[in-house]
């Protein structure tokens, strides 16, 4: 739940962590987004980086231009005057996915683990609307929650050394999309033709914290001809 008073944690001489709640929860996440949007709209002097995550906002600053106590006071003022009604609604983004076969090599295993058919896994995964809690791990990688309870699956025992870009995967109560090729231990159930990260575009990531995401199934032919 949301803390009545934020907890400020010191991360060295150039970062302040503003912790707003104690769990992974849409309400806490919305509050983080409110504070994040307010600070982005009216940047704090000396702040180089504002990184939102599940329940906190990290402010990285230039220690020659501002101080921890100054920043903490400013954040406290902003929190007291936040007006959630001024915030735009989160964006809704639909993401096409080819499920199974070489695109989703763990689909069968996930189905077997839950004692359901692969089609049922696809139906469950695509029926739900997910909340983007955070972009992290790699540029453009969205952490999406919550998975329906019947899809909560452990990570792979042995992580893969190569997970292709665009892979749609799940682990515990979350689902995510590999935005660049990398090693990884999540269960891969499909792949999207969309580019989750493109350093040449603005903004560079397809998704941002707070977006709502829904997946829909496409077939291989549609994937090949998908207009990015």
């Amino acid at each position, binding site marked *: 739940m949301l803390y009545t008073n934020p907890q400020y*944690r*010191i*991360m*060295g*001489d*150039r*970062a302040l*962590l503003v*912790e707003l709640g104690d*769990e*992974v929860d849409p309400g806490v996440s919305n509050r983080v987004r409110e504070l*994040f949007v307010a600070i982005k709209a009216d940047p704090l002097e000396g702040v*180089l*980086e*504002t*990184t*939102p*995550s*599940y*329940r*906190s*906002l*990290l402010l*990285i600053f230039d*220690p*020659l231009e501002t*101080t*921890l106590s100054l920043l903490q006071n400013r954040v406290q003022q902003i929190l007291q005057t936040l007006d959630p009604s001024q915030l735009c609604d989160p964006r809704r983004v639909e993401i096409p996915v080819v499920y199974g076969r070489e695109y989703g090599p763990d689909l069968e295993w996930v189905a077997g683990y839950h004692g359901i058919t692969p089609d049922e896994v696809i139906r469950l995964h695509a029926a739900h609307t997910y909340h983007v809690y*955070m*972009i*992290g*791990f*790699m*540029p*453009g*990688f969205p*952490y999406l929650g919550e998975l329906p309870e019947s899809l909560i699956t452990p990570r792979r025992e042995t992580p893969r050394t190569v997970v292709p870009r665009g892979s749609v995967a799940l682990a515990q109560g979350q689902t995510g999309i590999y*935005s*660049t090729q*990398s090693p990884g231990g999540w269960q891969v159930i499909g792949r999207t033709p969309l580019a989750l*990260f493109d*350093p*040449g575009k603005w*903004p*560079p*990531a397809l998704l*941002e*914290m707070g977006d709502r995401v829904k997946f829909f199934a496409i077939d291989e032919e549609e994937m090949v001809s998908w207009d990015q």
Partner: protein
Amino acid sequence: MGSVETLKILAPGPLTTVQDRGRFGFGQYGVPPSGALDSFSLRVGNLLVGNKEHEASLEITVIGPKIVALIDTLIAITGADLQPNVNETPLEMWRSHLLKKGDVLSFKGPRSGCRTYLAIGGGISVQNIMGSKSTNLAAQFGGLEGRPLRKGDIISSDSPARHLKAVGRSLDKALIPSYTKDQDIRVISGPQDDHFSAEAKEIFFGSPFRVTPQSDRTGIRLEGPQIEAKKNLKESIISEGVVPGTIQIPGDAQPIIILGETVTGGYRKVATVISADLPLLGQLKPGDTVNFLKVSMDEAYQAIRKMENMVAGLF
């Protein structure tokens, strides 16, 4: 005069990349800072050749490349001592030199430190992506096509002839950092120091840790005594933003110092390296030992001001 071809890579070394001060302001998209891990050496090298201090240079890791000058070019080598040579004659570090067309720069091997910086008068002409020329190896963008240098690569620089007059500039010997195999690193407790018992913290601050070969630009993995979190706590915390220099303690109770290639992390962090000592992290190599010294916020600010005043007073 514009962009001119200055250097050609004859042999790249195992990991040579283009890095400037780093990429800031894109943490919300999961984009890490990257950038020179020893920012002090980057900045001084640039000033020695008459560049702006945050211009891109080549960051060379442990084993040096072999490079030929395509035109008269001013260079300076700072950071780790990998025994640079020009045409087989030793080259003094922390001083700007004129490479004549056809001169070959090579390195005899590491003597101290981990990363050396080759600054070029006129910098490195590559595209600025999200405000930086730094190479992001994991996502493959920035620098030269997002990859380490290869044999045959050509470096171009902006109006190199204009920089030749800075030849002979050198850093006062008293200011040259020494990289020892037993390095003290100053830290501030937190952000999750309350997750560790007084005893665990005593062990953390009282023991040497050895740098392991599993270290890279993402993090320095250490081995030493176990730093156990308080009992009743889960193995990980809810993921949150991190800053280079935070020291996280994963499930195996062995510290990892986060460097420049990640923006979030899910392990509790016992302490964070002060800004003034971040450049030293870039010079730690496998086998070195690290001792963490706890300092106050005041001491950290004094140290960073001292360093900035020193750099501001150069040349």
